[in-house]
């Protein structure tokens, strides 16, 4: 997490922080800067060396049908191909369940978006094809997703659904590219100790006209 992302995140989250008035003198109003006491996450001093699993720090909350739909949609966004497996095959459903069940502001913001999005998908599937979304064939599922995948050219009536799809794609990608298969898919070969760092290969620099 770099500082730039943190700044954006904190400014966005600040609206949801408790801003109780403290008694003050003078003309300037004053706000008290204090963490939300109700927050029950992993705390400000968690053990950084242990490996955590979804559901361990706070309970998962999605129902069985919601998790099924979560997996179907995640695999439409990240299906298996010749480079790597599908989103659901590396635990992305658990990641998304962990996310929407978490007590933090970003997660609490996303939870109603995801749940409403799931409901919208089921309604849309029933209205257009007379079945639940998970039971549709691939062409029918794609027809629905094509309508909402690009926020810049979505019909006004589907704007909320498009917002959901964008968030869900971000979450799916977050869950997928955080895993070893996701890192391998991208060709990330770092995070290993080296005795020397040589820099980029000279032939690549020559090709890019940077030597």
């Amino acid at each position, binding site marked *: 997490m770099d500082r730039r*992302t943190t*700044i954006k995140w904190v400014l966005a989250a600040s609206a949801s922080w408790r801003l109780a008035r403290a008694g003050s003198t003078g003309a300037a109003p004053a706000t008290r800067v204090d963490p939300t006491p109700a927050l029950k996450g992993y705390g400000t001093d968690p053990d*950084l060396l242990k490996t955590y699993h979804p559901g361990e720090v706070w309970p998962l909350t999605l129902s069985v049908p919601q998790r099924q739909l979560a997996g179907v949609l995640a695999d439409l966004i990240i299906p298996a191909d010749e480079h790597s497996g599908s989103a659901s095959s590396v635990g992305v459903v658990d990641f998304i369940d962990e996310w929407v069940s978490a007590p933090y502001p970003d997660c609490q913001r996303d939870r109603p978006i995801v749940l409403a999005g799931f409901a919208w998908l089921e309604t849309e599937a029933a209205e257009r094809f007379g079945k639940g979304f998970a039971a549709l064939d691939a062409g029918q599922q794609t027809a629905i997703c094509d309508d909402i995948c690009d926020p810049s050219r979505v019909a006004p009536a589907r704007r909320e659904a498009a917002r959901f799809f964008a968030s869900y*794609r971000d979450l799916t990608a*977050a869950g997928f590219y955080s895993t070893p298969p996701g890192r391998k898919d991208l060709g990330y070969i770092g995070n*290993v100790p080296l005795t020397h760092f040589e820099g980029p290969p000279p032939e690549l620099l020559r090709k890019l006209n*940077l030597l």
Partner: protein
Amino acid sequence: MPFVTADDQQSSYDVIVVGSGAAGGQSAYTLCMDGAKVLMLEAGRKYTAESETPMFQTPDMAPLAGVATPDKVFGFYDATVDGGWQVPGEPYVRTTEDPSGSFWWWRCRMLGGRTSHWGRISLRNGPYDFKPRSRDGLGFDWPIAYQDLAPYYDKVELLIGVYGTNEGRENTPDSSPGCLLPPPAPLVSDLLVKQRAARLGVPLIPGHRAVLTRALDHKRNPARLHPGNPSAQKLTAEAMRSRGACLWATPCNRGCSVRANYQSITVHLPPALASGNLDITTDAMVYEVTLGRDGRANGVNFIDRTTGRQRHASARVVILTASACESVRILLNSRSTQFPQGLANSSGKVGRYLMDTVGSSVRGQVPLLESLPPMNEDAADGHQLYVPWWLYKEQLAGKLGFARGYHIEYGGGRHMPGYTTAAGIEWLTGGSYGVKFKQDVRRYYGSFVYFDGRGEMIPNENSYCEIDPGGLKDKWGIPVLRFHWQWSEHELRQAAHMQRTFADIISAMGGRVQGVVETDGAKAIAPGGFIIHEVGGAMMGVDPRYSVTNGWCQTWDVPNLFITDGAVFASNADKNPTLTIMAIAWRASDHILERMRRKEL
């Protein structure tokens, strides 16, 4: 004499050091190497890099893929303990929530302070930076000059290990021969930025960071640091030998278990503890400096966080190194009949002239960097190259519309994938999903570039802190601070200038800016405190009427009370403050030793 509880402290010490970060670590190190008996009091818990650092942990091992949350604002694996812009049970107050006028106070509660998490960027202030008022009539001059501090910059670099090069640039000082370690090799994206920025007249040179690109010279450096002091040389050599060189992996903000980057706990404290001259009490929240009948400080009062009880510790000399605002808070809470408006505050300047760094950033995407072959670009975790302020002549000619400069920190490369790797890329992909989305993520991974400006803020009358007049106290019963903040036109115009410059560089790279280029400085600038370079509040000066300390960090009002952290800064150059804090702390500590030898303290 290592870690002691409040019950096990000696009845009196030569020096009490309040805080254990860059300033506290340096002060304690310097004093202990010369035989002074030191008690260090740290508000946070004990913290050990060797056993607590998540060196190779990956995002999938953390909750929520390690993303930032209010509990860990720089991500799960950031080293910070009990910290952030909010600390549980320790509120503060500010006068507005408007981002352009609010101040955000970053703290943590751990041994070593912020030095485990910090960015390690270690730039020297230049000659101009100590005499800014003489140059442009704004702000204040320091009572010391670059020449006073230059030997101490050398010493700090030799002790902690800083990579970089000497480039002979204006107001960007060279180090003495042998002080700097070799810089890391630049990445593909670094070289592309360098090539294209040069076309705009923007220079890129190797960065300076406190990372061991190779092991320190434990045979030569100790003799240069401690001439005529074989015991200090031996202790320092042993400490240097026990540090590993960089592994070229894992982000520095996690800390480093092989001690390859600078943290107070891995560099300053081990030799100080090995000297037998240092006692450290953690969980000791200092709230007051106590005065004897002679008007001299005789110790401090603190809360033992393990019991909640108020305790006292005694010493001949007290040094505050609690971080700029926390040191100010301690002074303002130390009220007596002699000092009704707070200790060392006869000038009324304690808390005044707070400064942060001007920050603004632009992100872009560069087609030339798409679909590069797999290569390890972890390097030394960034800042291989940077842009020092380069427009001195244009500024002197009055062409810029603002005073003081900024440097550019640049980032790019194929870093550890995670939450942000593919987030929000529909502006490039047209909303792809499925196999096409996977292809797109592969294509764009590593093709993003980030530019962060870090600029000088001029001190002003409207940026300050005081004890909250509303009477708010923290959970220990200690009165809290209230912050006032205001940028001047200089900072706002500078932030807008950063935005235009970064957009121009991205264009020169053939790239696209993500989002808007913000021409309104008030919207382009990060809120006060966000860059976490807050300094000032107990400024050094030449006149007791207008400053809090002299050039030796000694308070005008109380001769045995010193402040060696960022609070004494009289200006806040674009150069990141930590290296200067350490140089000032070393110089002041040498002065304290000399005065103690002369029995003046």
